[in-house]
Every structure is written in structure tokens, then in C-alpha cells.
């Protein structure tokens, strides 16, 4: 049986329950060390979540209580007003949510495809153009034409203004991740595996699809997560390319508020009162701002376990091998 088939078999066993490790088998740490590690990481984990909990808490609080008591983790004056306001003010939030989901899903799939397939030939030692294509990609990481020329390509060459593709195209290939993926391939996939598959008569496409992609699942999941978060959080493209309300993503609504606050603080000494007044009047209340933050942060945070499954799976693969 050739090596590649063997490996495929191993991958099939992934769904099996993980074998319980024996204690003190040398592969696991001592219980005391485990406790210390748990305390360290646990403390970090708690500190990481507190600000978000605070934002959540404020979003459920009566506006008057915030100006009275300031920011606290626990407020007594529970109120759903902020959410009622956000969801009832207009149906924009639903539309924007939908736009963000579409952009994130399409964009992530496209980016995974483009980035991993560009990185794969760069990993192949026998590929004569790998150095050139590395440089070709690397050069664009260093030098970019800037905002206006890119804008012209997007609007006048590709005609993407006011289309959903304007929000997707910009991030559809990640030059940085091309190198990370290449390195990942070369550390986890031995060249011999590819060679034996070649001997078995597999085409390049089949090798990529049947061997390389399954093995690189943890890396793809990581890239997918990073990309999805990137798409979910992007808003500047919307500012430049979108003039239709039905194509505005969720993050843009939040950034608009936060940028206006920053703008007010920065320009308090240069704007006259009419300008300040108008902008202040258009700022939503503190709790509404926090409610929007929660609505923006939660979906992507909750979809995290989906990606996480593949990291954990990667660990399990290792264990089953043994």
C-alpha cells in the first residue's frame, strides 16, 4: 500500500473518539504543572473577556444610570431599550447583517481558494518558477500604489462601485498568508508523500485536493478564521465604494459612530458650534452604541468554535497516529 493511501486511511479515523492517554506516559504533563498552566491561561482568559462583558452590561442598562454611576460591570437598572431602539429604528440593521454574512462567507471561501492554491506550487521543490512567483507576490506586499489608483482600478476598470464584489475583491488573496501556507506545507507535508502519489499516477490537482488540503486543515481553518474576521470587520471599502443603503455592511454602522466620536474629540477646537451641534445630535446614546458593538462582535465570536473544531481535530490526528 502506498504511503498516500495509508495517510488517507488515517484521516478517515479522525471521527473516532480519542484514545484516553495513560498517565505519566511521557506525552502528557504532570497534574501540578497542569494546574499552574490552567491558572496562567485562565487568568489571561478572564482578563480578555471582562471588557466585552462590560460592554454587554452597559448595553442592557438604562441610559440615565450610566451617566449617574459611570461604567461598571454590574448595573442594577436593567433595560432592553437600546436593543429595542436598534432593531426598531429601521430595518437597516437586518439588511446590513445579511450583507456582512454574505461578504464574509463568499470572501472567506474565495480567499482560502486563491491563497492556498497560489501557495501550493511555491512549496513544490521541483517547480522551476517558484522563486519568481514568490518575488512576484512579495513585491506587492511591500509596495502599493495607494488609495486613489486602487480606487480607479476598482471603479473604472472592474466597474465594481455599488456592487457587493467591491466589498469582497480587495481581500480575496492574502500575500502574507501565501508565505505562511507555503511554510506550513513544507513543515507538515513530506515531499516523499507527494512523490509516491505521483508514482501511483495521481495528477497534480488530485494530489492537491486529496492529500494536501486534508492535511492542511488546521492551517486552512486558521487562515479561514483570520480572513473571516477581517471581512467581518472591514468597513473602509463600504465608505469608498457603496452608496446604496442595501449594501452597507454591519461594521460600517458601528465605525460610523465611533469615527464621529473621535472626530468630535479631535476637532472640538476647530469646528464651530453648528457643526458640533449637528454631529452631537446624530450620535446615538451610549447604551445604543454598546448594543451595536455587541451585535457586531457576537456573531463572529460565536462562529469561532466552527473553525476551532479543526485545530482540535489536528491535535487529535496527531494522537491517533501514535
Amino acid at each position, binding site marked *: 500500500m502506498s504511503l498516500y493511501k495509508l495517510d488517507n486511511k488515517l484521516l478517515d479515523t479522525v471521527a473516532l473518539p480519542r484514545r484516553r492517554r495513560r498517565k505519566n506516559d511521557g506525552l502528557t504533563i504532570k497534574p501540578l504543572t497542569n494546574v499552574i498552566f490552567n491558572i496562567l491561561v485562565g487568568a489571561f482568559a478572564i482578563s480578555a473577556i471582562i471588557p466585552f462583558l462590560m460592554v454587554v452590561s452597559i448595553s442592557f442598562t438604562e441610559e440615565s444610570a450610566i451617566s449617574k454611576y459611570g461604567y461598571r460591570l454590574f448595573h442594577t437598572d436593567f433595560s432592553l431599550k437600546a436593543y429595542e431602539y436598534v432593531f426598531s429604528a429601521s430595518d437597516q440593521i437586518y439588511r446590513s447583517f445579511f450583507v456582512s454574512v454574505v461578504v464574509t462567507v463568499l470572501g472567506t471561501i474565495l480567499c482560502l481558494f486563491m491563497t492556498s492554491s497560489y501557495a501550493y506550487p511555491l512549496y513544490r521543490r521541483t517547480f522551476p518558477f517558484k522563486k519568481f512567483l514568490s518575488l512576484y507576490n512579495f513585491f506587492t506586499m511591500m509596495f502599493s500604489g495607494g488609495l486613489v489608483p486602487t480606487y480607479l482600478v476598482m471603479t473604472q476598470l472592474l466597474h465594481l462601485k455599488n456592487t457587493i464584489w467591491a466589498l469582497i475583491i480587495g481581500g480575496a488573496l492574502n500575500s502574507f498568508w501565501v508565505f505562511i501556507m507555503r511554510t506550513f506545507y513544507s513543515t507538515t507535508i513530506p515531499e516523499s508523500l507527494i512523490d509516491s502519489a505521483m508514482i501511483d499516477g495521481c495528477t497534480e490537482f488530485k494530489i492537491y485536493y486529496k492529500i494536501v488540503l486534508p492535511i492542511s486543515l488546521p492551517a486552512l481553518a486558521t487562515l479561514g478564521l*483570520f480572513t473571516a474576521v477581517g471581512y467581518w470587520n472591514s468597513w473602509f471599502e463600504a465608505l469608498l465604494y457603496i452608496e446604496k443603503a442595501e449594501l452597507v455592511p454591519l461594521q460600517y454602522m458601528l465605525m460610523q459612530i465611533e469615527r464621529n466620536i473621535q472626530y468630535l*474629540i479631535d476637532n472640538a477646537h476647530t469646528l464651530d458650534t453648528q457643526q458640533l451641534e449637528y454631529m452631537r445630535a446624530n450620535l446615538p446614546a451610549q447604551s445604543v452604541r454598546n448594543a451595536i458593538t455587541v451585535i457586531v462582535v457576537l456573531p463572529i465570536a460565536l462562529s469561532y468554535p466552527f473553525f476551532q473544531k479543526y485545530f482540535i481535530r489536528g491535535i487529535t490526528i496527531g494522537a491517533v497516529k501514535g
Partner: protein
Amino acid sequence: MTKKKKFKENFLRNIPLLLMALPGIVYIFVLRYIPIYGIIIAFKDFRIHKNGFLYSLMTSKWVGFKNFEFLFKTQDAKIIFRNTIGYSLLFLFLGMIFQIIVALLLLEMTNRRTVKVYQTLIIFPHFLSMVIVAFFVYVFLAPNEGVINNMLMAMGFQKIEWYMEPKYWPYILTIVTLWKGTGYGSIMYLATITGFDQELYEAAVIDGATKWQQTTNITLPLLKPIISIMLILGLSNVLGADFGLFYQVPRNIPMLNPATNVIPTFVYRALMNMGNIVMPAAAGLLQSVAGFILIIVANTVVRMINPENSLF
């Protein structure tokens, strides 16, 4: 002629691999190479003409390095460059160390379920925008009602004017960066480690290696390629800095400038709302060129040590 022949042969033999790279090649050409002519705007006195941007660009006067002058004419230039480069390197190295440590800790913990929970939690700060982070920092450091000053006073110490003293800010900014980026960054290392061949560890155990020895002798050496790639690529951004971290978190307070002024904040303060697209382009180009030189040097060094780990 043989060169040409060889090229043709190589080309024909590798058509499948070239086809796989083709979408990327086309994409990079259209979206990254075509706009690159815009770089010359940094050397122009840009005037707008009704025949469009390219015509405007071509007909605008060359002014040499005049658009770069504002970066060096300020008496704070030294501080700004020192801060930018210093923080970039600090965050790059320290960030990497913390990310790897957290990845290793997560890997070794025995209870998979808690690991899953930890992983989910430590990634959260990454989702918060800097405006919110800045506010959270303020809750801790506010002069009168801040959490830390309250604690200090309760313990009988003097309160500290955090927002008046630049000397605390290198630490504060570092803590915020690590807090925000470590969880997220550790995931990449975790994913890489999970791809390692488990048999190596089994063999090590048979030879009587302790857990610590397994980490130092197997895991870390295997991480070398990804570490060197991350370092080389990280160097490219040595003249860049997270604007929100240096502007919003210290609240743009003049007293803190010796510790917080970096190139992006300086450019922002100088050109705020001015509608000038040329000077930011000049600053960006300077950053690219510096990064480019650094990356070439770093890559050469890495290649001399181990060609396998170099970028190209």
C-alpha cells in the same frame, strides 16, 4: 537559445501547477501591479485636471523629495522615528514569544474541553475596536475614579497621574498590545504545531526525554521555519504602527507625546482633514522602502544560516 528552450520545457511540464497559481497571478497583477504607478505621486506637486487622475498625475510638476520634508523638518523627528521602530521591534519579538508560550501551554493542558473554552475567550480582545479598548484602559487609569488609583489609595499609596507621565506609557502600550494580540496570534502557532509528526515525540519518550526536553528539542526546532518567516515579514512593517493604539489609547495628550508619538500619529495630526493625498503617500513610500531594505537584509541573513527557512 538553450535558456529559451529550457524555459519552454519547464513551462510545458508545469502547466498544472501554473494553472493552480493562475488565479493568483491574474489577481495580483490587476489589483496590485496596475495601481503601482501611483507611487510617483509622492514626488509630484499634484494638481487636479478634468481629464482624470492619470492625466493629472502626468502633467503635475516633479518636486523631488519636497513632499517628504515634513517628516524630517519637525524637531520631534528623532523621537518619532525612535518610537516607531522601537515599538515595532518590541511588539514583534515580545508578541511572538507570548504567542508561542500561550500556544504551548494550550497544547499541553490535559483537559481538552477547558482548552477549548480558553481559546475562545482569549481571542475576544481582537474583536474590540481600539476606541473601546481605549475606553477600557481609561476605566483602569482615570485619575480620580480609575480602578487602579482607587486600589492604590485603598492600600494607602499616593494616586498616580497616569495620563500625565510619559514614563509609564511604554509599559501600558506593551500590555495593551499583548493583551489584544496574543490570543489571536497563538492560534497560528497552535495550528502549526498540531501538524507536526507525533511519532517524533513517541520516539523521544522511548529515549526518556522529559516534556521540557521534548519542547526544546522537537517543538521549537520544528517551529523555526514559521518563526523565521514571521520575523522576516514582521520587519517589513517596522516603520508602521497601529494608529488606534498610539492615538486613541493615550487620548492624544501632549504630555505623553515623548512616549506615544509615532509616524502614523504624526502624519495624522499634521494632515488631519486637509485633503492632502500627497504627503501621506510620501510617508507610506518611505515606510515601504525602509521595510523592503530590512526584509532583504533579514532574508539574506536567514538564507546564509539555513536556505530552507528563507522567504525567497
